[in-house]
């Protein structure tokens, strides 16, 4: 164990004794901070020191929109100072362990232990061990119950908290839903209790449990049935909420949005202006968790977006603006938005990009407006190979839609088409798998049907297939995942079915998807597994080179946890699900109806066409389509 004094050396240490260490690791720019637009405050004027801890590398973390938004929101408060902490790459982590160097924040260079609150943004299942590894580097105990009174309050947020149970016992507080308002409320309560002398960690957590969107795992006891399923969640006190309803921002036009961005010196994955156009999704694809948990749909107006974009350009100098949302072409004001942006972006040499295009609303006009010239490729996501299966998952696109879009893309000079699919979907047969190969063949065929002089050079189609992971709060939440062998067989089958050399097939080892399903559907009994892996130094598993399936199998075995209970077992329709403690607005009855329709092969229209009564409208908000 490190002596406490070691943790507080901060920036001074970085500048003096760290130089040889920094010269010995890859990309030292990750660790030095000092970025333009990063926020510095006077420690003496600050009453709550807050650190966003991103459980992945600097390059990934700096690109995260949620952190960018919340960093700005918290730093608007005069007496709160929000800083950033990222996970060190493995070479740096080894050096930190060897020389007892603590993990520090980018702004102050202070060690994590010096903070009042540490908030982890959990974006994907494979970051859980990284988050725990960061707690270790901070010199903190993993379990909330084992940490000291003076240790920081450790918070989790982000999309993974829609099933917080596998990691619940490591956190003092979990923020469910959108954090803009609730995080400030949490800090305000903390400051109030510190100032009037009523603060103890347990008293604070009790009071915080009364804030909507706050889940305090230690206030619940979980009981299990003899068959291993959950019997019930027992709140410890009468005023402890039975379910935690997620928080939403009601009016997106009035929601704070950063006017400045911290400018990384080193290249990050999405090194550009990101404009969040709306929250939610009208589509209701049955496998998609984001499409359910971000409901109801709340749009921003083009006027507000344009103002935000211009302000961000002036303060950053970026040459690209990415318009993002779950399905950008469903934005009701897209033409007006792109037209008003183009009024100044061309002159300033700023290009627009749209990362998610649906094939049923892709048009020539749209393609010309976005940064079509920068890359020769375009991506579409039919998700499944046959119409039957696309109806089961409620993707609501047809082969005609795809071929029409592909034609537009070819005519627009795009010769590389990337197609996203999933395998292992409920009801899937080998015929559906073969359908992927046939669809790809037809996409190539479209190219050769064009007159020779109109074709762009060198057609190439990439078929990228990921494995289906049944996700909480979706109509498929009860489904069993295909076994590893089945998933591999299907991947092999597709490989053999693709014979055209112009089609490139890429897929991931299904082992990662199996662990993702385990963590996505797990409960509190997985905590000892995560602890074991953290003890063994497992970290940064979102990077293929660091993921080791055998270590998981071994840890599960030692912890006495049966993986198949969470992955290949279909959950009972009447079973208490680990994530039933979380209320996302969308009702279980709706998810059940959608599941039944999936098995009947019936589709559900989008929110724009007809309300399907999902229940998210009860959350309120200035939403676009809800009744």
């Amino acid at each position, binding site marked *: 164990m490190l002596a406490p004094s070691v943790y507080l050396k901060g920036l001074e240490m970085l500048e003096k004794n760290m130089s040889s260490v920094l010269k*010995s690791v890859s990309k030292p720019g990750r660790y030095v901070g000092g970025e333009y637009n990063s926020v510095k405050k006077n420690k003496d004027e600050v009453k709550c020191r807050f650190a966003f801890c991103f459980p992945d590398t600097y390059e990934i973390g700096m690109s995260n929109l949620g952190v960018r938004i919340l960093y700005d929101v918290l730093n608007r408060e005069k007496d709160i100072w929000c800083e950033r902490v990222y996970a060190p790459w493995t070479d740096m982590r080894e050096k930190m362990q060897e020389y007892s160097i603590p993990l520090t924040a980018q702004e102050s260079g202070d060690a994590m232990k010096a903070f009042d609150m540490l908030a982890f943004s959990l974006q994907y299942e494979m970051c859980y061990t990284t988050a725990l590894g960061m707690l270790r580097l901070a010199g903190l105990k993993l379990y909330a119950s084992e940490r000291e009174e003076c240790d920081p309050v450790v918070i989790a947020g982000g999309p993974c908290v829609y099933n917080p149970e596998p990691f619940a016992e490591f956190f003092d507080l979990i923020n469910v839903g959108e954090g803009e308002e609730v995080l400030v409320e949490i800090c305000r309560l903390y400051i109030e209790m510190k100032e009037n002398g009523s603060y103890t960690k347990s008293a604070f957590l009790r009071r915080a449990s009364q804030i909507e969107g706050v889940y305090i795992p230690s206030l619940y006891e979980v009981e299990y049935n003899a068959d291993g399923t959950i019997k019930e969640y027992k709140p410890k006190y009468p005023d402890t909420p039975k379910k935690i309803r997620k928080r939403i921002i009601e009016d997106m036009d009035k929601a704070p949005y950063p006017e400045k961005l911290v400018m990384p010196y080193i*290249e990050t994955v999405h090194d550009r202006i990101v404009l969040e156009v709306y929250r939610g999704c009208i589509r209701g694809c049955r496998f998609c968790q984001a499409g359910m948990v971000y409901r109801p749909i709340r749009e921003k107006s083009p006027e507000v977006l344009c103002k935000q974009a211009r302000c961000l350009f002036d303060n950053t100098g970026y040459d690209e603006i990415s318009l993002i949302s779950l399905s950008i072409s469903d934005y009701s004001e897209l033409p007006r938005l792109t037209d008003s942006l183009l009024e100044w972006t061309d002159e300033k040499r700023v290009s627009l990009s749209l990362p998610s295009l649906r094939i049923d609303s892709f048009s020539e006009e749209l393609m010309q407006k976005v940064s079509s010239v920068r890359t020769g490729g375009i991506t579409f996501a039919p998700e499944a190979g046959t119409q039957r299966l696309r109806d089961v998952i409620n993707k609501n696109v047809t082969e005609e839609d795809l071929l029409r879009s592909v034609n537009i893309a070819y005519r627009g000079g795009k010769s590389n088409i990337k197609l996203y699919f999933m395998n292992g979907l409920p009801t899937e047969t080998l015929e559906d798998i073969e359908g992927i190969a046939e669809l790809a063949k037809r996409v190539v065929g479209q190219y050769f049907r064009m007159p020779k002089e109109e074709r762009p050079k060198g057609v190439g189609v990439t078929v990228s297939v990921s494995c289906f992971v049944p996700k909480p709060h979706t109509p498929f939440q009860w489904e069993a995942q295909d076994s590893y062998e089945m998933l591999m067989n299907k991947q092999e089958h597709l490989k053999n079915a693709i014979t055209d050399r112009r089609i490139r097939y890429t897929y991931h080892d299904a082992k990662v998807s199996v662990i993702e399903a385990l963590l996505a559907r797990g409960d509190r009994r997985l905590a000892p597994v995560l602890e074991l892996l953290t003890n063994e130094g497992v970290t940064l598993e979102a990077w293929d080179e660091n993921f080791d399936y055998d270590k998981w199998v071994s840890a599960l075995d030692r912890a006495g946890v049966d993986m198949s209970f969470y992955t290949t077992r279909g959950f009972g329709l009447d079973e208490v699900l680990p994530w039933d403690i979380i209320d996302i607005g969308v009702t279980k009855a709706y998810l059940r109806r959608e599941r039944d329709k999936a098995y009947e092969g019936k589709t559900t229209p989008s929110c724009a066409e007809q309300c399907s009564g999902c229940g998210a409208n009860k959350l309120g908000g200035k939403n676009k389509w809800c009744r």
Partner: protein
Amino acid sequence: MVQVTPEKLFIRIKFRKTGRLQYISHLDLVRTMNKIVVRSGLPLWYTEGFNPKPKMVFAAPLSIGTESHFEFMDLRLTERVDTDLALERLNANMTDELVCTEAYYPESPFTALRWLKYEMELVTSGASEELAGKCNEALASEKMEILKKTKSGETVVDIKPLVHSATARFEDGKIKISAILSADPSSFLNPEYVVKLLRERCNVLSSSDLTSEHYSILRTEGYFFDMTLFR
């Protein structure tokens, strides 16, 4: 859009890259400068083609781990601006570890930069007058051969012709080196090789504990062929 300019108009920016910025690579510095000049609102000339960028040219790129008070960037403009105004606009968009110190319209090309001066400080065990003397011997020897890693493996290179002068002294408990090294693009000498030479010959910085010994390198000045100060 084709821009017509009567001549290629460049403004020269002298800047410092110090402190934490020493860990930022040249490529990342270029990306950073790109955004700084855009934010500055100066009348930039953009490259043509599908991916227009402001035109910037840098002199003698620094390697990671070297600080500098003597960096130059030529920035192409579409019209002449007041040099004080340019300096002010750029510095308003920079941090205290990346600062512009001068702006002027250049009269000499970067290829005229022949030598660069470096001040190095070695915090090493055994630092003494005696060790400084040993370092001076190494720096004055007839041949200064070091192993250089190249694409085709390691080769022995004599860096002596690339060293204009180099001396060591013992000061403040450290070994301090002043060296003037070749800046010529075809025979540029990275100051790290001087440290490497001393490591191999004089047993400096030999501890396996990375936190007990360290060194810093600061580029301070540069010269024309006749040893007058480059500008």
